[in-house]
């Protein structure tokens, strides 16, 4: 193979340059070229130009491949590195002073690992000075090595520590200068909203509303301090064991991860299901970003899945930005329209169309909760479900309905006499609107009550008050009857009748 007749072709020279060095073809071609000066010259011509030669000789100074390691994602611990949790934890912790403990960091004796995520590892620990359980969150090594993430961690967690509220996990201490920065939080015994719903399925309307009210109150407290959570999701909402109390955790920490992952292009850990459209498109976010996420969380609580779903994270982001969610009432028929409407408004794509503040959301949802409790056994709508459950007394319910109908009938001539264009507003409308004030309305007074039947506003609010009282009495009656089915039926009947009379008394058309 050393005669000029068997020179290789340009195509073969390209194979030599670009294909695997040990492929059969490459080896075969190399065998010739290595011994043929003509082909070596051709190869040299083909492979380089003056530019690249110049760069190679001038720009290589300082090149240190081993140190650089700039491949994207290099800062993220690999699976292999994470495999041995115990070894990993030991790397973060000092040796324990007690044999049953996992380790120690500062004055905190680490008991066990309770969670881990993109930001770090969370341990249950004992504060040896105050002798109380705490949760210690240690910044992940890849973040603690990143100057920006480290600074952000300390800045944001100090800010979050200023939020003191019954629905926000308290931050006791921030150690930003430790080798692995960490923060010490109130230990909450319980589970996250995520695991609760995963375990027991969608929640009842009342539970959804309670969660909504509490979460919104917690958010309002943080927003008041200028802190936006940015990562509201079911996993960041804790439900305390035993009591119906919710606590939001990880305020402001989302940005720590953002800082570090910005440069690790292409790292998408998990699903962005609860992100707001403005986050998804990289726009500036304010407190209303949390409101959108809260809407998604409540949707999840009501249905068992987030409002925007897709196979891949990109698909989810696209849906968050461009698709309308399926209305909640369509997915879960138990959800009343008012609640469905609140969630629709939280999930508005444009922040300006959402509620203006978390405290408004809390107020509105508290209002729905209240009116829901009032409405259930009371007139109209509640009666229907009531009837279903209490066949025995359904005729009684019918009697109450008759009273209402009577009211309506009597008010109609009034309307005609006054020749008002609001004639369609009947007494029954009054009841409905009394029972279900719409979202955002501050007063309990019906907006569209048949004003014509009342001479002035005082009369009307007095009527509304009485009506609410009667509805409450009816509820008490029902609860009593429910809890004590052996109660004599006659007594129940008598009480119902007295309520019926009260209704007659307050009927404005009865008092000339």
């Amino acid at each position: 193979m050393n005669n000029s007749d068997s020179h290789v072709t340009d195509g073969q020279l390209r194979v030599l340059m670009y294909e695997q060095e040990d492929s059969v073809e490459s080896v075969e071609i190399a065998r010739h070229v290595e011994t043929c000066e003509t082909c070596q010259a051709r190869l040299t011509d083909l492979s380089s130009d003056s530019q690249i030669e110049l760069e190679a000789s001038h720009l290589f100074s300082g090149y240190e491949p081993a140190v650089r390691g700039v491949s994207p994602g290099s800062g993220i611990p690999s699976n292999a590195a994470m495999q041995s949790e115990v070894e990993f934890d030991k790397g973060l912790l000092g040796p324990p002073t007690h044999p049953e403990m996992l380790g120690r960091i500062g004055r905190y004796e680490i008991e066990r690992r309770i969670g881990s995520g993109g930001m770090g590892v969370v341990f249950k620990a004992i504060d040896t000075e105050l002798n109380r359980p705490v949760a210690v969150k240690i910044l992940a090594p890849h973040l603690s090595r990143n100057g920006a993430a480290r600074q952000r961690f300390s800045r944001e967690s100090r800010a979050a520590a200023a939020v003191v509220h019954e629905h926000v996990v308290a931050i006791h201490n921030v150690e930003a200068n430790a080798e692995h920065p960490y923060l010490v939080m109130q230990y909450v015994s319980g589970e996250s909203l995520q695991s609760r719903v995963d375990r027991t399925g969608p929640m009842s309307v009342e539970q959804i509303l309670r969660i909504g009210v509490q979460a919104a109150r917690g958010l309002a407290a943080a927003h008041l301090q200028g802190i936006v959570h940015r990562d509201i999701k079911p996993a960041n909402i804790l439900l305390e064991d035993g009591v119906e109390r919710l606590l939001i955790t990880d305020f402001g920490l989302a940005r720590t991860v953002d800082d570090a992952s910005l440069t690790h292009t292409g790292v998408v850990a998990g699903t962005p299901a609860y992100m707001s459209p403005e986050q998804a498109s990289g726009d500036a976010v304010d407190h209303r970003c949390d409101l959108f996420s809260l809407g998604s969380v409540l949707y999840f609580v009501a249905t068992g899945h987030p409002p925007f779903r897709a196979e891949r994270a990109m698909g989810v982001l696209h849906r968050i930005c461009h698709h309308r969610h399926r209305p909640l009432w369509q997915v879960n028929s138990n959800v009343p329209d008012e609640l469905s409407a609140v969630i629709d408004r939280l999930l508005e794509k444009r922040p300006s169309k959402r509620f203006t503040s978390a405290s408004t959301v809390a107020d509105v949802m508290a209002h729905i909760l209240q009116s829901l409790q009032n409405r259930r056994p009371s007139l109209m709508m509640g009666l229907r479900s009531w009837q279903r459950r209490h066949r025995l007394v359904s005729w009684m319910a019918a009697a109450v309905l008759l009273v209402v109908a009577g009211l309506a009938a009597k008010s109609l001539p009034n309307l005609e006499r006054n020749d008002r264009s609001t004639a369609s507003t009947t007494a029954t409308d009054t009841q409905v609107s009394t029972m279900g004030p719409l979202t955002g309305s501050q007063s309990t007074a019906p907006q569209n009550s048949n004003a014509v039947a009342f001479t002035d506003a005082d009369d009307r609010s007095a009527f509304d008050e009485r009506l609410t009282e009667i509805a409450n009495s009816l509820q008490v009656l029902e609860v009593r009857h429910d809890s004590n089915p052996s109660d004599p039926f006659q007594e129940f009947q008598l009480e119902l009748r007295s309520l019926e009379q009260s209704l007659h008394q307050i009927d404005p058309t009865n008092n000339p």
Partner: protein
Amino acid sequence: MRQAISDTRNSLLLRLSDKHDIAAWDQFVAIYQPLVFRLARSKGFQEADAHDIVQEVLLAVSKAIHRWEPNPARGRFRDWLFRIARNLMINFLTRRKHQSLVGSECIAELIDLQPAATEPDPDVTREFELEYRRERFWLAADKVRQQVKPHTWDAFRLTAIEEYSVAEAARELDMKEGSVVVARCRVLARLRTAVAELEGQPDEEHGK
């Protein structure tokens, strides 16, 4: 904590439907992340501050992408992206040269400045260009080094960088002289392609 996320790249993916544009962004990050860090360190910044500057620069540029609108007259996204990043850096470095190193002005602001707003210092521009080319070359080298066998890389390193003759390198590495030549050509060819890729140029059919 399943959903910790890097939203910047994703939001870019939403905004930039063209996969070439996404690749351009990735190349931008790959080149600028170490480049800005190195420049900041060489200007006397502490390591942590240098990291911050890197973040700020990348964020500022990613925010500027809002202003990108595909338009044939404006050319490729990639060229635009690298142009604004370059202007940003030259402005930044020029200001640094004339101001004290304390206090940090808003980097995002600098991106809006045309290069003429603060007359770019020719020294600064030259320095930036050199560092930019160096970074690009190093990145390409990182890539190629992983593609070839260690002795192939060594043959290249000795002859192209450390100015060994082919014969000396062959002796040093216990290779045939012809093998050293082939190895050196292999690496150079791949380097040239890798640099071209980082420049966003179509892969010129492997060479000529």
